[in-house]
């Protein structure tokens, strides 16, 4: 894992002291709310529906046991005993007092964490494939590049006041687990025919009010040119991105309006001007950062192991929640934060502590946060899986549902968020309860729920997406079908008229039952069946009785 150097530590320490002073001046009235708001947002502090919310950055979703224990401690000492993992691999606390937040940030700094650039019109926390550095299907660990981007973008003087927020995601696998095509910049690291590593650069993707898939503007970017090329993209956006209309300010609108080719030409012109300058990444610097992410000291172990005593529930869990590791004898373990009927992405302080212990004992001290609101133990010996499973069962987190219909993404919605129009979490809970008994028969199926048009719950790229809206003061839900945030990225289409809180659960069930009835075999995935059948049979089913 990356460790802070002296510069990082001093930078974060100074920022905490600065914010402590700002909070103090706000509480005494020296700063008005209008003056204070941009300052608190720069430090991840929102005022939400019920209270303040603190969003903590988890760079590229990588945590150590020590860091997770600190988050558990903060949940107990300053919040209400729970943390919420988000679709941007961050963690949110929903109940901190403003007066406590400087102390929280100081505690975070002790474990090399902060909340800087988790809000505001700047380059946000860089996300990455949650299996990075462990998965058998990647060409290299993408996290060193994510860390390089983090360092470049932290307090970047030119990009701290962009037209809108800016999100970057990185993967190095042909299977896109980072949803790169719905990010402002998506980077896909590939092995070129000559053996070098090069980036495919996607620009202008995003969800929200105007969902657009990113456009590929370069397929062969050398790693030493990464920062200069990103700087060129940001400069073109910063110059031409709209500041007059918040709904048209994201880079996706700029790319869409002038066209990807024209945008790429402007980037190319700027890049040629700055390429090879101070931003060129020397191999020695890439190697220095890369060393922080060196593989742990794996043992040489047989590729297969006798796992345990007979246990059907364990068999299901191994099938669903463990994944092929690049190192023989090891597996990646998804810890589902989606117990049936539970709150997607929530973990109690006790659960966080227990997971930190498991990571320390069984996963070289590492935990990953996924954009699907689960956690991962990236390096577990096959021989340890039974013990890990039993420990997870003991804390209520052994649900064998990774990728199944109950593994639902849901934003905080109207239960917490000041922007939301409708609740997301109770809908997720009820769908989970309704379909749990059939989830194995249904197979892989991604449901994603947002409580407003901002789409934090990724409803545009759900196989089944749900968007909460407000209709005459009441909660109402639109249903969307056919989206994907993976390598086959696609935007879901609205089926038709929306539903109330009860009706949307029934509608989802009808979609699932239609899929089960009409799929060509149990092996035909939902998206394949939807593509083959079209929307008509699903619409017929859900609107038949209305």
């Amino acid at each position, binding site marked *: 894992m990356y460790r802070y150097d002296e510069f990082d530590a001093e930078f974060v320490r100074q920022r905490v002291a600065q914010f402590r002073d700002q909070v103090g001046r706000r509480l005494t009235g020296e700063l008005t709310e209008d003056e204070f708001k941009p300052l608190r947002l720069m430090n991840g502090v929102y*005022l939400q529906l019920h209270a303040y919310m603190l969003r903590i950055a988890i760079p590229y979703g990588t945590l150590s046991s020590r860091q997770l224990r600190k988050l558990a401690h903060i949940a107990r000492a300053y919040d209400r005993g729970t943390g919420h993992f988000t679709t941007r691999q961050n963690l949110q606390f929903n109940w901190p007092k403003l007066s406590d937040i400087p102390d929280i940030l100081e505690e975070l700094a002790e474990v090399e964490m902060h909340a800087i650039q988790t809000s505001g019109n700047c380059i946000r926390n860089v996300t990455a494939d949650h299996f990075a550095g462990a998965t058998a299907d990647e060409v290299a660990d993408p996290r060193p590049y994510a860390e390089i981007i983090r360092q470049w973008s932290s307090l970047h003087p030119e990009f701290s006041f962009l037209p809108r927020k800016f999100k970057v995601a990185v993967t190095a696998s042909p299977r896109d687990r980072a949803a790169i095509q719905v990010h402002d910049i998506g980077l896909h690291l590939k092995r070129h025919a000559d053996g070098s590593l090069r980036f495919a650069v996607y620009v202008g993707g995003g969800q929200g009010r105007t969902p657009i898939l990113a456009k590929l503007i370069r397929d062969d970017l050398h790693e030493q040119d990464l920062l200069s090329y990103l700087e060129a993209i940001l400069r073109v956006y910063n110059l031409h991105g709209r500041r007059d209309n918040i709904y048209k300010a994201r880079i996706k609108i700029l790319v869409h309006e002038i066209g990807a080719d024209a945008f790429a030409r402007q980037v190319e012109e700027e890049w040629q001007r700055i390429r090879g300058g101070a931003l060129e990444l020397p191999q020695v610097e890439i190697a220095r950062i890369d060393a922080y992410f060196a593989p742990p000291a794996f043992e040489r172990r047989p590729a297969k192991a006798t796992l345990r005593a007979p246990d059907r529930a364990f068999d299901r869990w191994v099938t669903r929640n463990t994944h092929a590791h690049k190192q023989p004898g090891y597996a990646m373990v998804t810890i589902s934060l989606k117990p049936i009927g539970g709150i997607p992405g929530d973990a*109690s302080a006790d659960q966080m502590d227990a997971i930190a212990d498991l990571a320390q004992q069984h996963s070289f001290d590492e935990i990953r946060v996924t954009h699907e609101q689960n956690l991962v133990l990236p390096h577990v010996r096959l021989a340890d899986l039974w013990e890990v499973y039993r420990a997870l069962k003991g804390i209520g987190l052994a649900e064998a549902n990774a990728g199944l219909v109950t593994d639902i993404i849901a934003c905080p919605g109207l239960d917490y968020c000041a922007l939301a129009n409708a*609740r997301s979490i109770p809908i997720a809970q009820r769908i989970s309860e309704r379909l749990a008994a059939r989830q194995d028969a249904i197979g892989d199926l991604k449901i994603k729920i947002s409580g407003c048009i901002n789409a934090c719950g990724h409803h545009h790229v759900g196989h089944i997406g749900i968007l909460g809206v407000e209709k005459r003061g009441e909660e109402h839900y639109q249903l969307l079908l056919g989206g994907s945030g993976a390598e086959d990225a696609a935007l879901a289409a609205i089926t038709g008229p929306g539903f109330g809180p009860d009706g949307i659960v029934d509608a989802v069930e009808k979609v699932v039952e239609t899929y089960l009835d009409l799929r060509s075999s149990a092996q035909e995935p939902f998206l394949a069946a939807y593509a083959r059948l079209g929307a008509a049979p699903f619409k017929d089913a859900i609107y038949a009785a209305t």
Partner: protein
Amino acid sequence: MSKSAPHISVLTANRLDDGIVVFLDFEGAWNESLAEAVVARDPGEARALEDRGAYDAAHNLVVEPYLVEVREEAGRLIPIRTRERVRVSGPSILDDVPGYSPPLAAAAHPASGQLVEAA
């Protein structure tokens, strides 16, 4: 406020120090209970509440004050919009969180589809 609806309103905000939802009460204090809120029954009273909210915000007692439309039902105040009902009652989903106690309020609960009284 809607011009045609006969709704009444209360003044709400978030407390500066901890961000908790509060309502201006009969005694001019900021109170966590909607039941204690002072009610504006005409535009003049509503404007007076807004003025008071702006004053208290300027004096750093509360943040982001605004009027909430409510109706009276069996002697109770119930916000018109779902958003405000959730804001009054707290998250509808925290029964299993250790130490969490939902505040006293009425709320539309999606699980039951009807108005329920929070404990």
